[in-house]
């Protein structure tokens, strides 16, 4: 099992959600976050003051998937969230030791 975390542009959330549901991945957690990357939170034609690195609003989504589906999910999120402009975000995956569905007490792949 892996936890896939993706930082994407906020307006891409609906599209990514629909794409994941369409491919059969039913659960997801989304949160509003802020951050910056290599461009320091600036747009291409930056006109603000000097020496400021500004946080940009983003959405973070988290999906737990079976390891076999990992590449598929990453590709799906990437292709849906991509605009080709700066600030498209990042996706990373981490190995997951344990998963439990609270209501039923099911563990690991049962709980997916």
């Amino acid at each position, binding site marked *: 099992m892996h936890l896939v975390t993706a930082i994407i542009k906020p307006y891409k959330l609906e599209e990514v959600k629909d794409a994941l549901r369409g491919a059969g991945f039913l659960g997801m957690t989304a949160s509003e976050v802020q951050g910056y990357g290599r461009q320091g939170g*600036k747009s291409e034609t930056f006109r603000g003051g000097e020496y400021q690195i500004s946080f940009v609003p983003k959405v973070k989504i988290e999906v737990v998937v079976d390891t076999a589906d990992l590449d598929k999910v990453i590709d799906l999120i990437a292709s849906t969230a991509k605009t*080709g402009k700066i600030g498209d975000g990042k996706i990373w995956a981490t190995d997951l030791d344990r998963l439990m569905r609270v209501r039923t007490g099911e563990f690991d792949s049962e709980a997916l």
Partner: protein
Amino acid sequence: MSSTARLSNSAPPTATFSAARLALDEQPTLGGRAYCNALSAAADSWLSQLFAAAVEGRKVAAALIAVGGYGRGELCPGSDIDVVLLHKNERKISEVADALWYPIWDDGVHLDYSVRTPDEMVGMAGRDVKVALGLLTARCVAGDDDLAAGVIGQVQAQWASKARQSLSRLRAETEERWEQYGELAFLLEPDLKRARGGMRDVDAVHAAAAAQGETVAADPMLDAAVELLLRCRVALHQLTGRTSDHLVLDEQDRVAARVGAADADELMAAIAAAARRITWHSDDAWHRIDGPRASTDADDIGPGLAIVNNEIALTSAAAPTIDSSLALRAAAAAAAAGVPLAREAMAQLAAEGVAPPVPWPAATRDAFVALLGCGAGAVSLIETLDQLGVFERYLPEWVAVRSRPQRNAYHRFTVDRHLCETAANAARRVRDVGRPDILLVAALLHDIGKGSPGDHTVAGERIVADIATRMGFPPEDADELVRLVRYHLLLADVATRRDLDDPAAVAAVAQQVGTHESLDLLAALTEADSMATGPAAWGPWKAELLETLVTRAHAALAGEPPPPPTPLSEADRALMATGRLRLIADEGRVTVVAPDRPGLLSLVAGTFALHKLRIRGAVAGGEGDMACDVFELDTGWHDAPRWDRIEADLASALAGDFELEAKLARQAGGARPPRRASAARAAHARVLIDNTSTPAATIVEVRAPDAVGVLYRITGAIAVTGFDIASAKVLTLGHEIVDTFYVVEAGLGRRCTNPAALRRLEDAILSALRRPW
């Protein structure tokens, strides 16, 4: 999606910037400025190509301008490429920007950019001093040269036309930076760019000159200083692969090797000397900007000196070739009046001044003492005399301690600066002693032996004996100076490491120091020295201990009996009568009452460590089978300790059902090594056993690197080898701890004279300190 395809087509036609940088990095002999110029040139040619590709087929009035350090051609490996895309209200400018920035981002280069019209650029520079500073040295890299030159010229003209506003903003920005980054020359881990004495100060002086329509006079020594800092900065970026200009201890050896210094000490001394040159230059420039330029009447302030235009000047009566007191009197007058030495006066003193005859004339000696007596104001004047090469005419021994680094977290200053700061502190204590002149000279010279091999106190005694005679002090005064140097660490050592309730410790101090007068001098010197050392070396705790020791040593000198040991209070007795564990906290003092058992102190130390409380001292007491131990704690904690939890944990630990060892291990494992500066070299554990100082107990002194639970381990080892701890003092010197224990044989309550038992004790402590968690 469409832009992606276009961007990949506009990939740079030739080698990228990062490739050019890699090629330059393979030429370690290139030096500082040469490297930066070459790297800036590589950036220029890469950006011109990108710009040409970006505007190809478009008709745009635009220019790419290099600003800041890049504008000056001082690009370092980790520097941002700092550029402005200037355009005349082009509607399509974002397409040009896209085509420029994406390849730069994709090359992994740090880019700091803006896109502006001429009006925006000039307006921005008028509002934001940092923008203005960046644009003062801007230059056109690609595109419309005339457009760029026009706007840059406008910004420069605006900077000069509002000179007063420009200078005051520059001043504020500079002082804020100094406040934040400290002084390069005296810091263990300096920021080469932003600290006072760093490269930014040189830029600021140039900017200040530009505001006044002047240029900075050429100064080869200043250029050499900047070159050294640039080389170190280039080496640091290359070695770390990062953009930080913070020269941390871990990197100093590698940077030293890369720039060709023998070792890190030599490197840091060279950096300190360079930073001093820059600071001196910058101070001189700012003094002149601040000083009222209106002419005032000459004010006579002693033979050959006058205050002219708010500066100390030499009059026509001055005789620098004959009067060896002149430079010292000039400096003292400047320190006292808070004004600088005039540039001409400095030049004349440097060129014509002479070393004083031996022995020094009384007037010269008096002037020397008077300068030291000016206190904090004297420090920068001594620095000025030193930069001029004048100070070493009086004290050739100064050369050996000049810019000498003390590379550990305990010391905050280089040796020479520490000596000046100590003298400045001593100047505040002159009313407390019978011989202010001796106090001030001793303060300035107490560590002069640090420039010589061997023990600095022993070397210092010899050097100070020479200097005192040369200065013309009579033999008895010279002896007093030597005595102060010999014992300058005595009071601090005894106060922080010995049991002051032990009459033998106090009597030994009294006997060594000899007289009330010497004791007063030594007390004032100790305070001045500790305050000038660093934050870990002075505080209310140490001040109180020192005062206690000095009071008791005075009493011992007067033949008064020592105070009786503090008896157990009624409250303590009542608590002991309960027969249970009780923990009473009162500010920084905690009394622990518990059924006595071997290793009690170790369990308390371990439990306190678990709750991140630092013990500074402990006194064991009690009666019958109950112990009543008093702990002094470091009250610098962030949150109020939860005494109920601490007591509960201690109860479990005493009952043996608490995994103290395992919990401490977890804490040690989770504790990240402190990011603050520690020391150039790791401290080794050492145990010193002193069986002669006091008949009542064996004194065990342990020096070890500071770590989680170190006191718990030492006290545990003492308990298991069959010793009781009567009292303890715990001192943290930055990265190292010095713990002193008065131990007695368990059950017998007396000093241990069995060498085999003492060896076992030493081995047990050392192996406890080595044991991994």
